[in-house]
C-alpha cells in the first residue's frame, strides 16, 4: 500500500468529503454533557463536585406592566360597540346599562385582601411537588410527536400540566425569564368591569387571576411545548361572581411552526382557585438539512360572565423566540443534491431559546483539571469569554479558519515539538471567532509560568519551551494563550466542548461563555 502523502494547504482547502455537504449551508447567524436545564458541562459521574449551573436570565426589552387596554380611548372604542345588558340573570343594577371590561398586566394590588389572596394562590402553586426534570420534558415532547402520528396512548401522557420550576416562581411578575431550553413567566392579570349610563362610566367590579406560562424545548427534539395555567384568585362586586363565569383560551404560533395540538383551557371555569390548564405543542417546519427556523408561541384568553359581553382578550406578550434547526444533521445522502436530500429524521433536529447565552463549565477538580486552570488563567489575564460578563465568544465552524487559529496558537511540529504525553491547548479555543487568527482585533501570544501555574495536587499545568519565546505575564483583552497540557486532559476537555456545542445547539456565530469552577 502506498504511503499517503500530506496534502498541501491549497489541496486541504478543498473539502475532503465525497458527499456534497453544500446542503449544509448555514444561514444562521445557535449541556452540557450532562443533561441539565442550564448549560453545565458534563462531568461523567466520576467528578467530585457537581458543577454550578448558570441561572436563568431575564428576556431583554420586554414591558412587564401593561395598562394600555384600560386607557380611556380604548374603553371608549369598546363602549361604542357595546349594547345594553338585557339578560334577566344579570344583577338588577346593571340591567339596561352597557358593561365593558379591560385587561391589565402586573399592576399593583389595591387592597390587602387581594394582596394576601395573591400570595396564598402563589404559595399553593409553588407548593406543588415534582417540578420537571429534563427526562420528563423529553418524554412529553416525544409523546406529542407520537400522538400526532396517531398514537392514542401517547396523548394520555400529556393529560396534566407540569408544575413550574422553582426559578419561574423566583421571578414572578417580572416578565419572561429563560434558560437554554425553557422560558417562563408568572403574570398577575386584572380584569376591570365598567358600567355606563348616559355616557358616564363607573367601575363596577374587578377580577384578578394568576397566569402561569411555561414553554419548553429539548435540544434533540424538534417539537416544543407551550403550557399555560390561569387561576382566578380574587374578585370584588361584578368580578366576584364565580357562577356563570367562564374562561376560553387558545394557542397560536407565528413563524416556522405548525400546530401539533392545542388543548384549549380546561375546565374553562373562571372561579376562585380553579386551575384552567392548557397545553399546546408545535412542530418545527424547517426540517430540511441545514434548516434553521424561528417560532413564537402565544396563548390568548378571555373571560365571559354569561350576562356580560366577553372581556377583551388577553394576548400573552411574545416570549423570546424559539429556534429549531437541523443544522447539525449530516444526512448521509451521498447524492449530495439538496433537492433530493431528505431530512435525516428527528435525530438531527432540535430546539433552543437562542437569546439565552449558554455557558461551558470546566472543572478544576474534574476529570481534566489542567484545561480548567488554563482557561482560568487566560480569562484572568484579560482574554474574553469569562462568565458572567464576557465579552462573549462566538462559535466558529469554518474548517479553514479553525485550522488557521490552531496553527497560529499551536504551530505544528517541527516548529513546536510537543513534550512527551502533552498536547497544545489554546485559549480562546480554535473553534471560536475570537481565536488567534480570526479575532477581529489582532493580538499576540502569551503563556503562563511558575509560580502562577503550579497548583498543589495538579502540579505545573502549563509547560512551554523557552525557545518558543512565548512571553508570560502578558495581560489585556486581545491575543491568545498557549500551553502544553497533558494530552488526555486536552483531548477529553475538547470532546466535552464538542458535546456542549451539540447539547446546547450552539450554531456558527452563536455566543457562549466559559466558566472555570
Amino acid at each position: 500500500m502506498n504511503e499517503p502523502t500530506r496534502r498541501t494547504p491549497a489541496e486541504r482547502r478543498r473539502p475532503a468529503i465525497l458527499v456534497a455537504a453544500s446542503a449544509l449551508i448555514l444561514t444562521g447567524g445557535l449541556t452540557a454533557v450532562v443533561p441539565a436545564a442550564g448549560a453545565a458541562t458534563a462531568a461523567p459521574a466520576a467528578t467530585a463536585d457537581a458543577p454550578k449551573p448558570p441561572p436563568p436570565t431575564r428576556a431583554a426589552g420586554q414591558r412587564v406592566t401593561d395598562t394600555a387596554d384600560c386607557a380611556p380611548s380604548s374603553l371608549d372604542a369598546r363602549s361604542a360597540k357595546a349594547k345594553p345588558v338585557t339578560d334577566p340573570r344579570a344583577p338588577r343594577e346593571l340591567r339596561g346599562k352597557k358593561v365593558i371590561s379591560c385587561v391589565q398586566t402586573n399592576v399593583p394590588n389595591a387592597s390587602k385582601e387581594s394582596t394576601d389572596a395573591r400570595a396564598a394562590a402563589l404559595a399553593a402553586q409553588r407548593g406543588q411537588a415534582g417540578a420537571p426534570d429534563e427526562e420528563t420534558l423529553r418524554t412529553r415532547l416525544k409523546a406529542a410527536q407520537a400522538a400526532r402520528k396517531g398514537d392514542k396512548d401517547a396523548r394520555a401522557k400529556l393529560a396534566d400540566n407540569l408544575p413550574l420550576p422553582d426559578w419561574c416562581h423566583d421571578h414572578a411578575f417580572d416578565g419572561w425569564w429563560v434558560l437554554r431550553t425553557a422560558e417562563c413567566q408568572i403574570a398577575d392579570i386584572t380584569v376591570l368591569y365598567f358600567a355606563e349610563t348616559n355616557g358616564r362610566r363607573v367601575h363596577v367590579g374587578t377580577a384578578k387571576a394568576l397566569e402561569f406560562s411555561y414553554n419548553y424545548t429539548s435540544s434533540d427534539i424538534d417539537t416544543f411545548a407551550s403550557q399555560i395555567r390561569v387561576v382566578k384568585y380574587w374578585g370584588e362586586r361584578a368580578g366576584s361572581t364565580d357562577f356563570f363565569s367562564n374562561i376560553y383560551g387558545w394557542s397560536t404560533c407565528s413563524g416556522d411552526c405548525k400546530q401539533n395540538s392545542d388543548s384549549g383551557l380546561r375546565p374553562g371555569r373562571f372561579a376562585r382557585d380553579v386551575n384552567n390548564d392548557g397545553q399546546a405543542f408545535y412542530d418545527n417546519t424547517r426540517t430540511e438539512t441545514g434548516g434553521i427556523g424561528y417560532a413564537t408561541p402565544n396563548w390568548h384568553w378571555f373571560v365571559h360572565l354569561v350576562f356580560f359581553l366577553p372581556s377583551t382578550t388577553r394576548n400573552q406578550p411574545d416570549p423570546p423566540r424559539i429556534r429549531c434547526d437541523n443544522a447539525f444533521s449530516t444526512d448521509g445522502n451521498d447524492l449530495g443534491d439538496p433537492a433530493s436530500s431528505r431530512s435525516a429524521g428527528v435525530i438531527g433536529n432540535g430546539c433552543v431559546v437562542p437569546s439565552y447565552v449558554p455557558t461551558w463549565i470546566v472543572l478544576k477538580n474534574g476529570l481534566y483539571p489542567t484545561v480548567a486552570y488554563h482557561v482560568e488563567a487566560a480569562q484572568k489575564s484579560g482574554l474574553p469569554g469569562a462568565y458572567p460578563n464576557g465579552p462573549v465568544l462566538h462559535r466558529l465552524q469554518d474548517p479553514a479558519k479553525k485550522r488557521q487559529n490552531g496553527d497560529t496558537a499551536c504551530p505544528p511540529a517541527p516548529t513546536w515539538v510537543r513534550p512527551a504525553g502533552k498536547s497544545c491547548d489554546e485559549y480562546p479555543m480554535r473553534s471560536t471567532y475570537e481565536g488567534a487568527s480570526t479575532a477581529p482585533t489582532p493580538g499576540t501570544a502569551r503563556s503562563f509560568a511558575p509560580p502562577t501555574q503550579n497548583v498543589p495536587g495538579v502540579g505545573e499545568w502549563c509547560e512551554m519551551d523557552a525557545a518558543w519565546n512565548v512571553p508570560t505575564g502578558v495581560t489585556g483583552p486581545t491575543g491568545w494563550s498557549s500551553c502544553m497540557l497533558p494530552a488526555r486532559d486536552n483531548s477529553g476537555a475538547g470532546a466535552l466542548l464538542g458535546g456542549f456545542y451539540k447539547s446546547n445547539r450552539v450554531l456558527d456565530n452563536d455566543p457562549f461563555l466559559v466558566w472555570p469552577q
Partner: protein
Amino acid sequence: MASSAAPAVRVTGTVTVEYNRFTVAAPGASPGCLDLPRNGLVGAPLEARPFEAGTVAVIATGVAYDEVAVTAEVWTGEPPALDTTGWQDAAVITVDWPGGQVRLLGEDTVPPSELPLGGLPAGRYRLLVAGRHRDEGEARSGAMPVEEYLIRLWPASSTGERVLKATSATGAMWRGG
C-alpha cells in the same frame, strides 16, 4: 461463515479529526463522541447520549486536529485474517448497525469532515480497525508521515472484542498507561 475474497466496497480518502478522534456514524449523527476507546484504538460509546444518537464507534488517533488517511472496506463475509505486519495496532469489535449510509465523521465544522462508505443493512457487524504512524506527534506538517487507518466491516458471525496488536505509544496513552 466462509471467507470472502475481496471487499464489496472499498473507499480511500481522508478524514480531518478533532480532539484525537473520529467516529463511525449512522444517518443523522453529528460528529464527535465524548468517549475514547478503552483499548486505545476503537470502541463503542460508553453511554447512549441523546446528542450522540447514531454514533456507532469511536476511533482514537494520535493527531489532534489533522488529517488521517483511511482505507475503508465493507465485506459481505469474513475477510481473510489481517496481516498485522506494518500496522502498529489492530483490534476488532462488534457493533449494532441501525441501517442506512455509513459515514466516517471527523471535525464538527460546516461542512463537516466526512467520508461516506455507502449503505449497509441494519444488523450486527464486526468492525476491524488497524492503525499506523500514530506516534509522530499530535500536530504534523510538511513531509511528516500521515497517520493511517484501515477499517473493515462485515456481518458478524462471532462477537467479543479482540485486540490483534497493540504496540503504539499513542494506544498506550489513550488506554491510560
